[in-house]
């Protein structure tokens, strides 16, 4: 069946901001889908609120809307663009939910828009808990039994028919709080009654436990002729009980025989048919009992997903691209295999390597949350590695993590008190982000695999692999440098040992290992990812390294540039840097060079083999980069676009004689090194907040007294403000100091004057070494003290004076010229009482680049790449222009995922993603950004809660008055209410923080009466209250302001754009043809 000709325009909805569980894999999928639909000649309209995406690059589709994904916006866009169809399966749960809402409310029918990719009925059947269960029953497949109860008796009755242990999960609580595992009726009684109390709906789910079962996933595709293929099987190293997004996963499945695998395959096919996913990809999860082989269905997603992105990277089969083509009517046999070009896409990839994915966590940023993995996903990113064997791929993945580990390093027991064996036992039983290192250590300490398996439920096959690595490590130590032979070294490299780990075990330096390997010719070869295990020739240059005989990567003679990617997503370094790297690849190709990409993050567009000319899916370590440099001999390497990951390697690469393109390495050091930086500012006669550096507590106290409180403290060389904080007293300073020293003993603590009430401004510059031009100016909405990555900001600035703007530009230019910036530079300024301070200078791309590019319509990362390759600003014809529209960036946070985490903002970055709102006025842009995060909540409720600290109370009066004028009722804490009443505001409802009271805030929230919360409490005494409020806010996902400035802006904007029906939506201007 050829493609449908009755469709002309197709609307695609993206996944919105990056949050835990929904990250940039949807940009990868969405971009593929957009390109595939364009290729087929359709007119494509895209809606996504996330500016840091490749899919929203103007020109990729016919009309790009960076607007909130809310019903009003979608309907207006439908009216404006008249799409014939909506493809809802590319934007994660966000797009699916929105599409379902539109369908249920008749919006699609009203405007004659069809669903393609999946029908509402299929989505409903797959997503609805009961509908899915019934569907599985009807085809004879088992699921863990469960029931929702609102009384302890019902739970006990359920337990009579379902064997213990039982899992109890209260409905709608954060981080699974109030739940647990019951092994006995007594425990069940206790947990359920506790759970019923904390559940806002007084309901808990009681479910049969399948903890410890083996977990599998199949990626399935089906076309409208009912052809079904499995793209990839994935086996989790971690057992059931750990969310699959938090699990270490391996492809293909390793411990299923063909008979068992085919049974699972049959089930997946039956599920696809029963659910009725008729065009596209889905994933199905299974649990398998390790001793009986009993299989249960866990869930299915009728759309592309995180795991489909992983499966695409793992096999070379572009699921989203093919799914988009199936959605418009093609069948699998009509689409060629993207890699071989000669065989059809209707087949099941066979892979001749092993893929390991390891998630990356950020528990260190949420100190009140225990590092404990469970059924709720908490990881913020992931790495993938490819090796010919599990051991090789696993160890490559470990060193890709960038968490300071270079293999199965000996874990740190200092955080755990108690005798090591007892500690280990607990750590194996209650898995944390560190579990594999403890598993290895248990085996290292001579524990039997049986004992480790009983505690961890990790399959013996994986334990045997880890055991053999531990044994190899012992042999390496025993052998030592002097007895080592080339054959041994080669064998160890074949097991995936990094040079760094080998150096540690052999007690030599890394460069000695690296040198010896070159002397002995122990070097990797590169193999192709080709979907077919080499059965057919293939053209697509997608490589991984291994230690074998034949090298398949044969470099061309063309001049080429190597781009180092940004590694796993984490808080502080996310999709924004991948965006820059992708643009670099585009620019390099446009200039006629070959673009070579190196990255290890499977979620990204950069690791789409379509992005660059050659893709190396490898760890980003010095060792791995040098191998590629030596093989490919690029004319230069780009390190300034991938964030800290490549930047950390800059020094070593520079020393190894590798040409770094753009800004000279020395400038990076000058900006990062505190003393050199102070010297630089002195030379240019620029100001920075008063500061000092302390190596001891006494020094810190002394500096504190000199500068005066509050102070900003941070360890040197940090990313995303890690362990950064403000202190308001000597007492706090002492506390922090103890903690900071444990963070990085070799680095001193930096102490800065905290500019209370200052306005922060982020400014991006482009430089060609001789000249520098403004890229964009972003005025922060929160006052100084909130990490720049967490602050909302507006471009162009709406409150800065022309003098200030001129000063920023002049100072930034001076810095760029002095640092010989060639490429991008970001400067953070603070303006207080007309005085301009330099907070930080980064002579590299910062996370602001995508936002500025979208807001200004200027592809900064592309320009930067051209500059790095020798173009001049003049040659580019680049001129900074102030856009007519306002664009506001607002951030989203993962607090709700972390049990007990406080949602307070501070100098340590905690956000995972961003949205952009555009409008003709600041207020519209700001409110759109809010709407993009809080979706439909804006206008539903009629009360606003205010509870602020004393110093802020007076400033709340006009805010409250404004709200009252708009017809909102104020509810407030007693202290705040008093102040507001004194200024003439009446009808204030006093509320209490403690739940259970008739007038507790909890009840107001529960009844859905609160539209907005303003809460700035910081003092220690009030902190418990504040924390409690913020937890509630997270719980109900309401807009909340934790700063006075935030509240002022919110209310001011709210007055004009309190309901979305005042929003106007416009697509981004198309880029001028270059």
């Amino acid at each position, binding site marked *: 069946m050829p493609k449908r000709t009755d469709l002309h325009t197709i609307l695609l909805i993206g996944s919105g901001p990056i949050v835990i569980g929904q990250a940039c894999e949807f940009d990868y999928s969405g971009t593929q889908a957009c390109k595939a639909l364009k290729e087929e000649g359709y007119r494509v309209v895209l809606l996504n609120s996330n500016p840091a995406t490749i899919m929203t690059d103007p020109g990729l589709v016919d009309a790009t809307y960076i607007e909130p994904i809310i019903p009003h916006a979608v309907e207006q866009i439908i009216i404006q663009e008249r799409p014939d169809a909506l493809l809802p399966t590319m934007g994660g749960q966000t797009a699916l939910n929105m599409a379902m809402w539109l369908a249920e409310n008749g919006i699609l029918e009203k405007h004659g828009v069809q669903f393609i990719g999946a029908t509402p009925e299929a989505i409903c059947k797959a997503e609805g808990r009961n509908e899915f269960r019934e569907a599985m029953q009807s085809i004879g497949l088992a699921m863990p039994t469960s029931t929702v109860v609102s009384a302890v008796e019902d739970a006990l009755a359920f337990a009579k028919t379902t064997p213990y242990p039982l899992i109890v999960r209260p409905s709608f609580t954060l981080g699974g709080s109030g739940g647990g595992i019951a092994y006995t009726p007594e425990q069940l009684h206790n947990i359920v009654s506790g759970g019923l109390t904390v559940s806002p709906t007084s309901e808990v789910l009681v479910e049969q436990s399948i903890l410890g079962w083996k977990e599998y996933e199949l990626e399935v595709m089906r076309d409208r002729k009912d052809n079904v293929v499995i793209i990839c099987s994935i086996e989790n190293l971690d057992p059931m009980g750990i969310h699959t997004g938090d699990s270490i996963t391996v492809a293909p499945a*390793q*411990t299923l*025989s*063909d008979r068992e695998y*085919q049974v699972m395959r049959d089930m997946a096919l039956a599920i696809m048919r029963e659910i009725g996913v008729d065009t596209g990809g889905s994933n199905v999860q299974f649990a398998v*009992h390790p001793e009986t*082989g009993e299989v249960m269905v866990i869930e299915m997603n009728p759309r592309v997903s995180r795991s489909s992105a992983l499966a695409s990277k793992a096999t070379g089969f572009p699921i989203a691209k093919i799914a988009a083509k199936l959605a418009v009517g093609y069948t699998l046999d009509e689409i060629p295999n993207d890699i071989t070009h000669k065989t059809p896409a209707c087949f099941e990839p*066979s*892979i001749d390597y092993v893929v390991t994915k390891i998630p990356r966590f950020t528990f260190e940023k949420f100190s009140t949350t225990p590092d404990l993995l469970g059924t709720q996903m908490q990881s913020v990113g992931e790495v993938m590695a490819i090796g*010919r064997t599990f051991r090789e791929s696993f160890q490559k993945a470990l060193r890709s993590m960038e968490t300071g580990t270079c293999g199965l390093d000996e874990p740190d027991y200092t955080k755990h008190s108690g005798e090591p064996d007892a500690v280990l036992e607990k750590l194996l039983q209650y898995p944390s982000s560190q579990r594999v290192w403890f598993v290895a250590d248990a085996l290292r300490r001579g524990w039997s695999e049986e004992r480790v398996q009983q505690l961890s439920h990790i399959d013996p096959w994986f334990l045997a692999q880890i055991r053999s690595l531990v044994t190899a490590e012992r042999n390496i130590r025993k052998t030592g440098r002097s007895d080592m032979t080339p054959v041994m070294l080669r064998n160890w490299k074949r097991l995936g040992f990094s040079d760094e780990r080998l150096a540690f075990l052999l007690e030599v330096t890394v460069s000695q290992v690296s040198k010896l390997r070159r002397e002995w010719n122990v070097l990797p070869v590169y193999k192709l990812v080709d979907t077919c295990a080499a059965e057919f020739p293939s053209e697509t240059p997608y490589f991984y390294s291994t230690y074998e005989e034949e090298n398949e990567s044969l470099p061309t003679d063309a001049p080429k540039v190597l781009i180092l990617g940004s590694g796993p997503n984490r808080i502080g370094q996310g999709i924004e840097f991948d965006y820059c790297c992708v643009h670099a690849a585009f620019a390099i190709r446009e200039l006629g060079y070959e673009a070579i990409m190196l990255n290890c993050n499977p979620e990204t567009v950069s690791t789409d083999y379509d992005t660059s000319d050659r893709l190396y899916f490898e760890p980003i370590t010095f060792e791995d980069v040098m191998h590629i440099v030596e093989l490919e001999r690029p004319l230069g390497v780009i390190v300034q676009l991938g964030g800290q990951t490549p930047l950390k390697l800059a020094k070593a690469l520079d020393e190894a004689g590798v040409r770094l393109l753009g800004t000279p390495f020395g400038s990076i050091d000058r900006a990062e090194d505190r003393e050199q930086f102070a010297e630089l500012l002195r030379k240019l006669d620029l100001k920075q907040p008063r500061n000092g550096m302390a190596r001891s507590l006494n020094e810190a106290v002394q500096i504190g007294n000199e500068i005066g409180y509050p102070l900003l403290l941070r360890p040197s060389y940090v990313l995303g403000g890690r362990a950064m904080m403000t202190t308001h007293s000597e007492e706090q300073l002492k506390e922090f100091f103890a903690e900071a020293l444990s963070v990085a003993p070799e680095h001193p603590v930096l102490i800065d004057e905290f500019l209370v009430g200052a306005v922060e401004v982020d400014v991006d510059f482009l430089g060609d070494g001789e000249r520098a031009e403004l890229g964009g100016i972003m005025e922060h909405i929160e006052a100084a003290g909130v990490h720049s990555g967490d602050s909302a900001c507006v471009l162009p600035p709406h409150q800065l004076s022309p003098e200030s703007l001129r000063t920023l530009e002049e100072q930034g230019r001076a810095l760029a010229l002095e640092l010989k910036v060639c490429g991008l530079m970001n400067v953070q300024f603070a303006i207080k009482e007309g005085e301009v301070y330099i907070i930080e200078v980064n002579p590299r791309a910062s996370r602001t680049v995508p936002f500025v590019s979208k807001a200004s319509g200027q592809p900064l990362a592309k320009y930067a790449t051209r500059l790095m390759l020798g173009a001049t600003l003049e040659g580019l014809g680049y001129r900074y222009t102030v856009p007519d529209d306002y664009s506001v960036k607002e951030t989203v946070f993962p607090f709700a995922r972390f049990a007990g985490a406080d949602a307070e903002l501070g100098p340590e970055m905690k956000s995972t993603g961003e949205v952009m709102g555009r409008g003709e006025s600041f207020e519209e842009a700001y409110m759109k950004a809010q709407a993009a995060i809080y979706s439909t909540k804006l206008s539903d409720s009629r009360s606003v809660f205010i509870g602020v600290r004393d110093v802020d109370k007076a400033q709340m009066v006009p805010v409250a008055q404004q709200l009252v004028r708009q017809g909102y009722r104020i509810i407030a804490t007693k202290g705040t209410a008093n102040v507001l009443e004194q200024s003439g505001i009446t009808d204030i409802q006093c509320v209490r923080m403690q739940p259970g009271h008739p007038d507790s805030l909890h009840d107001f929230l529960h009844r859905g009466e609160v539209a907005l919360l303003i809460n700035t409490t910081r003092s220690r005494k009030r902190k418990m209250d504040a924390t409690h409020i913020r937890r509630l806010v997270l719980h109900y996902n309401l807009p909340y302001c934790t700063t006075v400035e935030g509240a002022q802006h919110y209310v001011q904007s709210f007055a004009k754009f309190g309901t979305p029906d005042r929003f106007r939506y416009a697509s981004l201007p198309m880029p001028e043809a270059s």
Partner: protein
Amino acid sequence: MTDGLLVLSNGLYFRGHLLGAPMEATGEVIFNTSLTGYQEILSDPSYAGQIVTMTCPQIGNYGVNPEDMESGTIHAAALVIRELSLVASNWRSTQTLDDWLTEQRIPILEGVDTRALVRTLRETGECSGLIVPVDSQHTLDMLREEALALPLMVGQNLARRVSTRELYAWPTEGEVRFRIVAYDFGIKHNILRLMAQQGMHVTVVPWNTPASEVLEMQPDGVFLSNGPGDPAVVTEAVEAVSQLLGQVPIFGICLGHQIFSLALGCQTYKLKCGHHGGNHPVMDYATEKIEITSHNHGFAVEETSLPNDVRVTHRNLNDQTVEGLESLTHPAYSVQYHPEAAPGPHDAQYLFNRFVTLMQAQGRA
């Protein structure tokens, strides 16, 4: 660990070390792209005389068990892999792969750059090879000469070697609906299991059983099994099938399909690189649906040789080879690939139902 070599008749060689039974082996070197199913593959008689390279790098992970045998023993000559599993981990496993091969006196060449080997075979075609321990007595040149002297697969009647010598019965599970005579050219147990599930009582007969003897048994249908070697030289069977045509419904698989086609007057030829794997897309022209199928064949039917009354029913979408035939004159059809799977997807199992339908249409039930 003994170092071992795989030396190909084209002169290339690959290093590894010998596991399993550390002995020499010779055969046609082929590769299989299935990710699972090594036990079924090794015990499938169609692999007789072949050195099997698995492209999946980790082999032996789930051990072996009595249920997954496709015949009584191992038929492949040797196994070439990247890595043998350290342990066997599966609730059905009763033995490690290593132990099983040691016991059955089959060598494993492990640690091989199997991908490089596959690329070689893909480019130069499947060829003969030998596996030997590395020792000082044999120079590489001597081994190359030895490899070059190995017999080619073309012209070998291997069905004779693997077929049963005596006829035997494979009883149905439950009520007998059909009586089948199955020619054993190297029959896989899963074919028998599936036929038994369909109510067929199967009498398995030696490869060279004359048509008259079969007809004396008055079967409702005749099945032509899979098997190894060159179909063109299994002349007694071709002769028998041509006599059976029109007398009784016939269903053939793999070598059985090739013998059937020869009996119809078609020709067969050796593929440069055979199909061995579990992911081959095949179009069924009757339904225009695609099935993902299990393949294992080094020979194929020459499409240009088809008589007018023979129709192509199935085709491989990768290389367009003929994968299924039916006679327009006689109640008979066959497929080149393996609807019985084991290992592989179950998509094509409907072909056994078609056998039932065919026999019913002939008034046999």
